[in-house]
């Protein structure tokens, strides 16, 4: 029976086991919100201090690429939600297919980010003292790019970690470790991936669409 196969000895039943696992994941996500929160606070303060600079500097970000990346992340959020649903219904093949699509979309996001970053490196829109670009009016334009690289950098790191976790889940699904009775690790990775999407939902208008 599923109860004996998946249940760790210190839980009463599978229900309690998976609820505990998800509770732990949600508490971790709470700390993630606060991790990004610190940079959001920095954004708020410096934008209030240098409103002109932020409006002038954001015009140098590519709204088209930012929009494409937003769409890519939303679709990847949808596909991982569908992958979890497939596992609830014991459809392993479809679950694996949706996980693979999610990983590919994360890859597309990173490739687009790479093009954005390399363009900024090239023209010298770099954080802090490395900033050499000339052509943004306003006080302290390097601060905008410090915050831009901090926010998108930490977010990009989360995308890479998320990709690895999804790949790990894909491997475990392939080996047959999960079933409709036990799939809480995929759910936890899904929650993490949705949080990465949630953060981007706020990053995109704050960095690309201000003004």
């Amino acid at each position: 029976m599923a109860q004996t196969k998946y249940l760790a000895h210190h839980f009463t039943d599978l229900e309690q086991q998976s609820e505990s696992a998800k509770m732990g994941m949600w508490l971790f996500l709470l700390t993630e919100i606060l991790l990004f929160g610190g940079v959001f606070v920095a954004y708020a303060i410096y934008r209030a201090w240098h409103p002109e600079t932020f409006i002038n500097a954001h015009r140098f970000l590519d709204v088209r690429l930012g929009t494409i990346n937003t769409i890519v992340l939303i679709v990847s959020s949808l596909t991982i939600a569908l992958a979890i649903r497939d596992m609830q219904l014991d459809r392993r093949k479809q679950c694996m297919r949706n996980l693979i699509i999610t990983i590919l979309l994360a890859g597309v996001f990173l490739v687009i980010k790479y093009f954005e970053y390399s363009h900024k490196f090239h023209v010298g829109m770099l954080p802090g003292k490395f900033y050499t670009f000339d052509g943004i009016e306003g006080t302290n334009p390097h601060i905008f790019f410090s915050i831009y690289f901090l926010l998108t950098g930490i977010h990009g790191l989360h995308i890479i970690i998320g990709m690895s976790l999804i790949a790990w889940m894909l491997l475990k699904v392939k080996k047959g470790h999960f079933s409709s009775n036990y799939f809480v690790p995929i759910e936890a990775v899904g929650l993490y991936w949705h949080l990465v999407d949630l953060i981007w939902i706020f990053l995109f208008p704050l960095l690309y669409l201000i003004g």
Partner: protein
Amino acid sequence: MSHTSEHKNHITPLWVYYAVGTSLLFLTMITVAASYIPFSQFTGIGSLNFAVAMIIAIIKATLVALFFMHLAYDNKFYLFSLLAGILCLLIFIVVTMFDTQYRGLINPEEKTPIIQQTAPEQFVGKKHHEASQEDTHH
């Protein structure tokens, strides 16, 4: 037991996922389009564009949290945990902004936001020291 295992294995209908996904894409288009409309100039309200963008982002985030993250069906403790995180973040932002923007209103020695203030002379170096020496005693 049966009611709890039903709760755990709640399977969201497929159309809900597609409806949420479509709404998110639609709202993304709206927020991009809205950023090109200078609401602030039409109405004279300073940060209306910012408000519009944030309201759309909050709607999108709510959709993701409720349906993709299953908060609408799951144990409400998870929702509580998320809201606690957001509350802490709001306290963090609001209190810090009050300090950096309005410190001058309650501290008569520093009448301007701290970005416009010059550093006290002990942090600046010898150059400005002589000029402001008479102000150091209150």
